[in-house]
């Protein structure tokens, strides 16, 4: 039973590509056969985040135009077995691919892979329409900012209009200390507005910047809080019930203890 999952957000810079890389890697680590498709034609990033940029020979546009076979364009990940990338073209634009072609491509890949993760470009135009065309499920990424939540709301509406019911919400770059001070929207605030199911909350983590620059997904970094959050999200995607990491209220045992003793937790 293979599935096409699109990672989308509306707003740019909220972490779609990072999420795609981490979820894809996580699923591959758990023994699934995974292909990541970058649909951000003209502004491709997923190959860079995965550290596979220099291996690209053919891309998504070559595949849909019939310049090569799908298998020729798939890049095998250098670290993890069962993980493949179909990169976007860089010197073309979004109109090079049509939704019907994406649908056909996803259908073809479904025969070979357990999970097809589609990295959607920012915006709601052609690129978005291409990305969601072949999708069975959607994950909407947002950050705790009004602008990102506003765009996520628009995206949820568009997904529902395109028959993609029950999209899941992923809140990225959450900072519990700021929520506590009342300077940032809390998880509940966001869910109140969007009214969709939560798949996970990823804390703001410096390690993500480091791993992105190195071209290595953070999910395998046992010390990274974001990596831990992504590991949980992967398990939830696979249908497991995983308790949510504690956010917004406290950061751990020491903080709880301090509060218990009447000390000001900062």
């Amino acid at each position, binding site marked *: 039973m293979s599935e096409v999952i699109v990672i989308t957000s509306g707003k740019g810079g909220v972490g779609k590509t990072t999420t795609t890389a981490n979820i894809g890697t996580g699923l591959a680590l758990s023994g699934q056969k995974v292909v990541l498709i970058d649909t951000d034609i*003209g*502004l*491709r990033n997923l190959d*860079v985040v995965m*550290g596979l*940029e*220099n*291996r*690209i*020979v053919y891309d998504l*546009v*070559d595949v*849909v*135009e019939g*310049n090569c076979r799908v298998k020729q364009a798939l890049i095998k990940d*250098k670290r993890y077995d069962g993980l493949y990338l179909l990169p976007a073209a*860089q*010197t*073309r634009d979004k*109109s*090079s691919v049509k939704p019907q072609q994406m649908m056909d491509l996803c259908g073809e890949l479904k025969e070979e892979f357990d999970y097809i993760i589609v990295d959607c470009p920012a915006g709601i135009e052609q690129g978005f329409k291409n990305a969601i065309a072949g999708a069975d499920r959607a994950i909407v990424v947002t950050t705790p900012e009004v602008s990102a939540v506003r765009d996520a709301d628009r995206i949820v509406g568009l997904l529902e209009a395109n028959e993609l019911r029950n999209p899941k919400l992923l809140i990225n770059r959450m900072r519990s200390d700021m929520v506590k001070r009342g300077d940032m929207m809390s998880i509940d605030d966001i869910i109140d507005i969007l009214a969709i199911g939560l798949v996970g909350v990823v804390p703001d983590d410096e390690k993500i910047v480091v791993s992105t620059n190195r071209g290595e997904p953070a999910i395998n970094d046992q010390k990274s809080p974001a990596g831990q959050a992504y590991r949980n999200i992967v398990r939830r995607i696979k249908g497991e019930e995983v308790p949510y990491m504690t956010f917004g209220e406290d950061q751990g045992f020491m903080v709880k203890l301090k509060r218990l003793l009447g000390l000001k937790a900062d």
Partner: protein
Amino acid sequence: MEENIISFKATLNGLILVMREEDDFDVIYESVARKLETSGRFFKGASLDVKYRGKKLDSVQQNKIASLIAQKASAEVKSFEEDETFNGAEMEAEEPDRSSEKPRMRLMYFKGLEEGMTRFYKGTVRSGTLVSYQGNLVVIGDVNPGGEVIAAGNVIVMGSLRGMVHAGADGNKEAVVAALSLQPTQLRIADVITRPPDTKQIRQGLLPEMAFVKDDLVFIETFLPQFK
């Protein structure tokens, strides 16, 4: 979506106007006018055989567009007729195929490596930009990661080469790539494709180097005596 209404294709002695069947004549007329407004200078003074495809036009409409091209582009329109060599089935195949920008491998490849047509490109080739030429190509500037430089002949970069480079793109293995700092994302000569090793090497300053193919392997050497 605007630019999809019409497009121009250059031919040997004129151009082809490609339209979409479903658009009204008025819409097409408007977008031809707009397109010529921005790119019409290109045809100035030329005499063109114009053909059209994708939609049937009656003689009144033909005359309207022909005189529009003549007027906006200051070009002489020698003829304006339907492109009969073209049939609908071909359109599907040809329309999305813009990859003809990238030269294909051919038996008759470019042989002017020593003394041949050369394009000089001034400026930085940034991410997402493709600079290509059916001859030798000289970039006076840098090529950034994500930028692509493709030439049928040699590629010379008077700056740092960090993007993708393809020399001898239509099959000439004698082609070379030279740069003041040669650190490409990927380097291709004819049908030989290489990439730098995954281990990061730190190099400072400019070190002019040249890449060439020998026995289907890419070799990289410095070409200035003082760096040897």
